[in-house]
């Protein structure tokens, strides 16, 4: 009882925080009085209990803060007023509002499109329900010296599949499939060459989530000569008929399967477009296995992709640690250089390190670049918004002053300005979504992707959109909200100094930032275009112009008739020459293991690409000899033993002087003989890569393509005539033609898409920046109308006034150029590293970009400046 007694702390605190200030002293006093009385009459504990209960009973609306502060104040009136003011501001300055809303909308639309593209690219293979458990083997060869593996291939040998399955209990299922095969399928009258189909194990449907509409997923691909059609392929051959149990006549697939009748055992849904490899038809792997059983135990033969499904016990790190031992058990040879690594499904499209893919791969770097551009564009658009708001802040200054003097609190003003910017951003967002929807088809035709707004609209994305609207609103509205609301009413109403110092510095900083981004984008666009032109115009070392290519897919009877075909076609005046080959530059080629007596006198075996060619191929493509001789009909033994290689191959075997390798013994794929000639290096792969060693053995029966050099004014006519000859000599083969240059340039399709998108978005970014500059210039010019009037009265001429008005901006653009140059140089250099043959980045590119930016800026400003300068001073000075 003697201990100082006081009411319990927390209820007191509650009372103090929720009760109206003016009632607090009285009520707290009453409560305390009752507390002490109760404590005296009963006990301290009872008093405390009673205090708590009484406290709770005090929580009544009439006693609490803010529930009803004053009967006159109605916040909704105020909100209505905010809305009216916001609307009047929008309407009063239609120009600014348009620039604000559409600039921002354009920026957001670009961002949306980029986001959709990035989203789509990242969605690859996501539809597999086992996506986290699917891995694939990539094959490599350890380097002699560093013991590390420099490059990997996805395409590899077959026995690895069975070996992995037998040695690793954590692997549930292995699915292997062949390299892409092209087979001619015939059904009655219909005959199509199917490109890019796979021989695939029956486990395919256990591992991948492709939906089988008809047939049994366990057995559809089990028996030899079974075929599973996709819906579209089924439609192509069978129309609306039921294809199940019917059969298709398939031509042979050299090295894989003989010709035969394939029984349709399943129909599956088309493979989704966002799959890292796609096909129209699957054939059973057992077809391949039955025709070539030898290669399924041959570790050196490369024609298989190996994917596998793991179970819960799988741990990637542990698995990788076990791989060296596993390989040592398979290869007793301590000198074995072969090694494997694995890649998870999520890395197969965007993060792969391997070459020889079963399908297309995307580029993570490009996605990063586009994301950065998207952020740039948005930043530029937001800066416009901020700039225009700050520039106009002094107009709103008076409003702020009045609002404050009639009792607005700072937080009301902040809420008002943020709310206003939120309204504008929401409007822009709506316009942006419209613009993006309208632009989507164009975007799809550029990227070759099937982006759709329906797929993009998910609950998550909508939430993201809403949050971004809020965020953009806050960022864009922060300056006016926080700076304007801080003005003291006295100064503003007295007539604030024309523009706040912070305002001007901030605005300059933002313009510099904006133009730095724009200049970086201009320079980037120029570098990308120059590089792409460089690629297109670079001398590849072979003749790709007017080269017609006919694909007959290794057809034996065509190969037998090659001389007849050649003579018949060359008889035409518009066909200069004809040659045959298995591979053409830019197309598919296998790799071969070749032993040649090296410079040190030892026979040395190494792998390199191989082009099996006909006798005239080298002349046909205009390839130049640097040593020895080319194939010739005068040397009949060339077919059996001759070998022409390129300079890189001569260097590979240690010969600095290509002439020295001529006459050296070699063996390759069962052929033996001597190297007879060395070709000057030519780019048979895209310019992303350096020229690799290459051998070009003369193998007339391995050929697949006819190459025709055409000299004609009427190309369609010539093609028609060639078609007639073809139909007469090879009536069983469809006439499939293409042109070498367009085939070759197709390798750059992704690069061209990149260039188009990059230029497009850069132009938009610059456009948005200019819109902002225009708004700003208009505004500052307007502010200086009186000054201009006075100057004119005092005798200034138009050019000096234009200079006066433009000078400020031009200085900013120059500063921006200085900032942008290193940034753009660094990032574009990184991009160029993806090309083996690249242009140098010269400083003048940045200068040019800067000049371009200055020119655009000057053009934008001068319109306003000249208008102001030409105005009659009387009008500008008369009104006050």
């Amino acid at each position, binding site marked *: 009882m003697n201990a100082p007694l006081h009411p319990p702390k927390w209820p007191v605190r509650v009372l103090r925080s929720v009760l109206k200030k003016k009632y607090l002293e*009285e009520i707290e*006093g009453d409560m*305390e009085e009752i507390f002490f009385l109760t404590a005296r009459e009963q006990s301290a504990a009872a008093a405390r209990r009673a205090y708590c209960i*009484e406290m709770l009973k005090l929580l009544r609306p009439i006693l609490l803060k803010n529930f009803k502060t004053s009967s006159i104040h109605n916040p909704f009136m105020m909100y209505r007023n905010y809305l009216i003011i916001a609307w009047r501001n929008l309407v009063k300055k239609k120009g600014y509002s348009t620039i604000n809303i559409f600039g921002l909308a354009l920026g957001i639309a670009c961002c949306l499109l980029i986001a959709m593209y990035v989203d789509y690219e990242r969605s690859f293979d996501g539809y597999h329900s086992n996506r986290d458990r699917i891995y694939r083997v990539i094959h490599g060869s350890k380097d002699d010296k560093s013991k590390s593996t420099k490059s990997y291939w996805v395409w590899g040998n077959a026995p690895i599949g069975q070996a992995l399955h037998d040695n690793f209990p954590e692997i549930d299922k292995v699915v292997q499939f062949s390299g892409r095969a092209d087979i001619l399928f015939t059904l009655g009258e219909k005959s199509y060459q199917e490109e890019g189909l796979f021989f695939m194990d029956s486990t395919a449907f256990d591992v991948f989530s492709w939906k089988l509409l008809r047939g049994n997923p366990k057995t559809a691909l089990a028996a030899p000569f079974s075929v599973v059609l996709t819906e579209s392929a089924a439609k192509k051959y069978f129309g609306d008929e039921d294809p199940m149990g019917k059969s298709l006549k398939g031509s042979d697939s050299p090295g894989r399967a003989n010709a035969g009748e394939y029984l349709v055992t399943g129909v599956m849904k088309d493979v989704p477009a966002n799959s890292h490899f796609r096909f129209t038809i699957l054939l059973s792997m057992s077809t391949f296995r039955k025709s070539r059983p030898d290669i399924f135990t041959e570790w050196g033969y490369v024609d298989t992709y190996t994917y596998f499904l793991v179970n819960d016990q799988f741990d990637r790190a542990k698995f990788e640690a076990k791989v060296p031992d596993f390989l040592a058990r398979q290869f007793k040879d301590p000198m074995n250089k072969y090694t494997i690594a694995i890649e998870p499904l999520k890395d197969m499209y965007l993060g792969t390190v391997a070459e020889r893919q079963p399908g297309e791969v995307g580029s993570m770097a490009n996605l990063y670049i586009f994301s950065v551009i998207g952020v740039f564009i948005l930043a530029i658009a937001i800066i416009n918004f901020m700039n225009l708001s700050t520039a106009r802040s002094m107009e709103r200054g008076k409003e702020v002053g009045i609002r404050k003097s009639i009792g607005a609190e700072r937080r009301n003003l902040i809420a008002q300005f943020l709310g206003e910017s939120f309204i504008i951003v929401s409007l822009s967002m709506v316009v942006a979504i419209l613009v993006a929807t309208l632009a989507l088809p164009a975007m799809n035709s550029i990227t070759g992707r099937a982006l759709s707004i329906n797929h993009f609209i998910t609950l998550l994305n909508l939430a993201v959109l809403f949050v971004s609207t809020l965020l953009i609103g806050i960022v864009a509205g922060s300056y006016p909200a926080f700076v304007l609301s801080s003005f003291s009413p006295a100064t503003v109403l007295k007539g604030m100094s024309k523009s706040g110092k912070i305002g001007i510095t901030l605005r300059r900083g933002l313009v510099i930032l904006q133009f730095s981004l724009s200049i970086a984008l201009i320079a980037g666009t120029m570098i990308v275009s120059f590089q792409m032109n460089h690629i297109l115009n670079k001398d590849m070392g072979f003749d790709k112009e007017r080269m017609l290519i006919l694909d007959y897919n290794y057809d034996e009877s065509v190969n037998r008739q090659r001389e007849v075909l050649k003579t018949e076609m060359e008889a035409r005046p518009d066909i200069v020459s004809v040659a045959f080959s298995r591979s053409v530059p830019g197309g598919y080629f296998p790799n071969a293991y070749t032993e040649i007596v090296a410079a040190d006198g030892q026979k040395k075996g190494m792998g390199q690409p191989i082009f099996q060619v006909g006798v005239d191929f080298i002349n046909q493509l205009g390839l130049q000899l640097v040593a020895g001789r080319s194939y010739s009909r005068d040397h009949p033994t060339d077919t059996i033993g001759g070998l022409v290689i390129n300079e890189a191959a001569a260097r590979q075997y240690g010969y600095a002087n290509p002439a020295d390798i001529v006459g050296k013994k070699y063996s390759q794929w069962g052929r033996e003989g001597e190297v007879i000639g060395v070709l000057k290096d030519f780019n048979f792969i895209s310019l992303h890569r350096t020229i690799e060693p290459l051998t070009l053995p003369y193998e007339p029966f391995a050929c697949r393509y006819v190459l025709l050099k055409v000299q004609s004014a009427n190309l369609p006519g010539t093609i028609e005539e060639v078609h007639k000859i073809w139909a007469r000599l090879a009536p069983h083969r469809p006439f499939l033609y293409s042109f070498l240059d367009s085939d070759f340039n197709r390798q750059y399709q992704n690069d061209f898409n990149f260039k188009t998108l990059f230029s497009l978005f850069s132009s938009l970014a610059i456009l948005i920046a200019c819109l902002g500059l225009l708004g700003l210039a208009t505004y500052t010019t307007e502010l200086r109308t009186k000054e201009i009037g006075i100057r004119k009265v005092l005798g200034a001429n138009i050019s000096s006034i234009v200079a006066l008005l433009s000078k400020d901006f031009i200085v900013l653009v120059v500063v921006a150029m200085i900032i942008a140059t290193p940034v753009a140089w660094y990032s574009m250099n990184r991009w160029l590293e993806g090309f083996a043959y690249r242009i140098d980045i010269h400083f003048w590119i940045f200068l040019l970009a800067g000049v371009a930016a200055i020119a655009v800026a000057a053009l934008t400003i001068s319109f306003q400046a000249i208008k102001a300068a030409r105005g009659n001073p009387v009008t500008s000075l008369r009104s006050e």
Partner: protein
Amino acid sequence: MRKTKLGEFEEFVLLTVASLQRDAYGVEIKRTLEQRMKTKLSVGSIQSALKRMEEKGFLTSEFGEASQIRGGKRKRIYSTTSYAHRVLSEMKEIRAGLWKSIPALSLELKSV
């Protein structure tokens, strides 16, 4: 009679304030009413009635003296306005009139 919106409890509180005169502050009002009504009342109910009536113009108030037992906090002394007196006496008259009419009415009821 105008609409005064004076509830039964409010009327009791108002009458208590009038009777207590200079002693009419929260705790005293509560104590007096509790004795008369023979029930426990909460501070909240008394306070909200007081505040409501102050808003309606039945009561005015001013700070009184502070005391040790109140932790140094001042009392708020309430006093009735003339408007309150008028309303109270009007209500009393209405009630008295109504009471007067009861005996006749009850006799009639009994005879039925």
